[in-house]
């Protein structure tokens, strides 16, 4: 990775100095160091991502606390989605992407060669920007992950050998749908095609599908950007509930949403730099970086 590109031209052009005379660049380490109580669930250290020759993320270091909501905000194209995809190695699926740096989860760097991707993605689940249920029944959507992972055994062979987990699957489907606050709306039509649900329902179905494989971390990439205000409010409520049990990392370009639902906020700015990270209240009310303040108050971005 060429180090020459790691400094954002925008930042070097006008090295904003503070009263103490230190540059933005030097202070960033301080602005993004966030002391929280408890253990970090995910620690990212010195993460660089390139798409071909273009560097999309520069030296990102961040620790994400357990059982909380961490919001990633920033103007579009600043690398939020790229960063999120690094956390469950979905970037592996993009041919042009190369990732370097450490992402530590459960004491292991997930970019080591012997990491089991199946296990990683089971434990670090993901919900996408636009709802993407499979063209299958609601039940099949939820049960898809557990079936594929052999957590529930169904089908002819299971029936013949008497190890059919139909009851267990039924339970799992109900539980996941309840957790995603969708059970009330769909419990009488579990065998209907999921594509017949409204956009907001589909997105909660995708969340339920993700919960069904029992993850520890849930990554969400602008999960409400394709939804109407009422559906958005439901998803926001749901995220608050999920944080009791799961570690939620959510990308959003909607600052009010970040302020409403998150415990801590990381601000990425153009060029792929993490500029500020801290308590959501602090970041929004009293940002340390002038550029972040400009962004939050709508002066640019």
């Amino acid at each position: 990775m060429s180090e020459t590109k790691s400094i954002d031209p925008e930042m070097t052009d006008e090295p904003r100095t503070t009263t103490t005379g230190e540059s933005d660049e030097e202070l960033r380490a301080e602005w993004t160091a966030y002391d929280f109580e408890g253990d970090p669930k995910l620690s990212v250290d010195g993460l660089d991502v390139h798409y071909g020759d273009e560097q999309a993320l520069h030296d990102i270091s961040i620790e994400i606390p357990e059982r909380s909501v961490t919001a990633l905000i920033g103007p579009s194209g600043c690398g939020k989605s790229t960063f999120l995809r690094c956390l469950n190695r979905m970037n592996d699926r993009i041919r042009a992407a190369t990732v370097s740096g450490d992402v530590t989860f459960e004491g292991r760097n997930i970019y080591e060669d012997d990491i089991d991707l199946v296990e990683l993605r089971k434990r670090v689940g993901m919900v996408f920007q636009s709802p993407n249920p499979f063209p299958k029944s609601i039940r099949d959507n939820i049960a898809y992950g557990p079936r594929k992972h052999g957590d529930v055994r169904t089908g002819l062979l299971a029936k013949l050998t008497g190890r059919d987990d139909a009851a267990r699957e039924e339970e799992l489907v109900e539980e996941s749908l309840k957790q995603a606050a969708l059970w009330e709306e769909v419990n009488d039509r579990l065998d209907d095609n999921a594509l017949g649900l409204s956009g907001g329902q589909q997105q909660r179905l995708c969340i339920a599908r993700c919960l069904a494989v029992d993850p520890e971390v849930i990554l969400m990439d602008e999960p409400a950007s394709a939804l109407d205000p009422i559906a958005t409010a439901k998803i926001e409520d749901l995220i608050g509930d999920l944080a009791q049990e799961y570690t939620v990392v959510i990308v959003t370009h909607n600052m009010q949403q970040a302020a409403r639902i998150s415990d801590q906020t990381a601000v990425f700015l153009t060029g792929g730099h993490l500029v500020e990270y801290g308590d959501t209240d602090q970041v929004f009310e009293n940002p340390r970086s002038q550029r972040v303040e400009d962004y939050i108050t709508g002066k640019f971005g």
Partner: protein
Amino acid sequence: MSHTDESALAAERTGTAQRLASAVVGVGLVTFVLSLLSVARILTEETTLLGVGLYDFLALGALAMGVGVVVLGVGSRTGAFETNPDDTPGLVTAALFGVGAFVVAGLVASQTLGLGTLGWFALAAVSFVVALFAVALTPEDIGSTLPAGGVAVGAAALVLGDVLAPGFAWEPVGFSATFTGAMVAPLVLAVATLVASWAAAKAYEGYGSRGRQTGAYLLVGINAVGILTVLAGLLAFIALKGVGPATQGFSLVPFEWPFVTNGYSYQPDIVNGVYPAIVGTVWLVVGAVITGVPVAVAAALFLTEYAEQGRFVGAVEIATNGLWSTPSVVYGLFGYAFLVPRLGGSTSLVSGMLVLGFMLMPLCLITSREAIKAVPDEYRDASAALGVSQWETIRSVVLPAALPGVLTGVILGVGRIAGETAPILLVMAGGLRDDAPDVLGSFEFTSAAPYVANDALLQSAPALPYQLYATITAGVSAENAAEFGWATAFVLLVVVLSFYAIGIASRIYFRRRLNA
């Protein structure tokens, strides 16, 4: 032409002009369909309608339309009808009328006036230019109605004036064909009524962009109806010829349908039938699908999901398209030279299955690839994010979503191979037989490798298309070969359409499972 430039949002559809235009279009549709039926000789000049000979009846229809269309145009120009025409009917319309003028002038100059090549061409070219400019430079209402009316009236005059009478015959020099009045007259009338209907449709909406839209809609719609009519006519023709001989001796209770359940016994008092050929064709198609489709789908999966998209995939794609366009007799020759010597040394059912399977492969590959490519990447991402492996994703998400598209390919492919004659002629050729190939009953287990044998597969078997060909060319039992042939053709048609029906029904089933 009282301009309605503050043009009403809702089109006024109740005026005299609208009623007249609707009447013209209505007469036009009837005349057009009757003309087509006459071209196909389903109706002939002997028919009389309302006491008038068919052709005169059609010509009167065209005449009425022509007059009606002219009235519509003149009425619009003089302000009798409220319309909103443009300055010109447009260059395309003008050019088409120009081409019409070219053809008419050329024919008149060369055939009636007897001018030489230079003479008729000069006259035709001048007519083209004159018509082009005349139409292009007149306002839209007159510009589209007068020429269209002229075409209709002219065509009617030719027929009514007995120029294009049934007795008319034209043998163009250099063609070994005769165009008779019985064929040409309805054809000319069909074109004329189409043109007049188009002009009336434009007049109905008061010209302008709304008029052009309706005119185009009418032409496209009639085109579609025309194609369907031709297809239906074709089917009806074969059915009419074939149903009679095919249902000889048919009874419902007790169920007896000798043509379909008998073989060809060469005995005078027993109805000869095509049962062996039906069974042979069904086995051929089943065998071809079993050998061709899985390989094609697997290849499509590899090329789409696994292979690096690059030069190799591009080359395979070109080769596949080439294979799909390869003439079937070439496949047959390959089978004859390569398969037959290796599979028992004589023509056989299994060679036929394999050759048809090879023919089926390229189309299934192409359509499966398209279907797999059309499966949204979001499904693959969603599955991968749940930690599901690529193969499991393909099996449980990608393939089910692509299945309707894959089936479309199989349906089209089966439609092609079920009627193939040329390769069958070379690799399977079974004559008229009394017994059907007993594929299921011929499986035998043997003590030595390969431990299973099937005699029926290694023998030649009859198939409907080849049998049809053989019947027609060889005239098996001279006195009713033609009848037997028509009946075979009819059964072949029914068999192929049944394959279609099965394919389409299963596609509907799988598509319904995918969509809410």
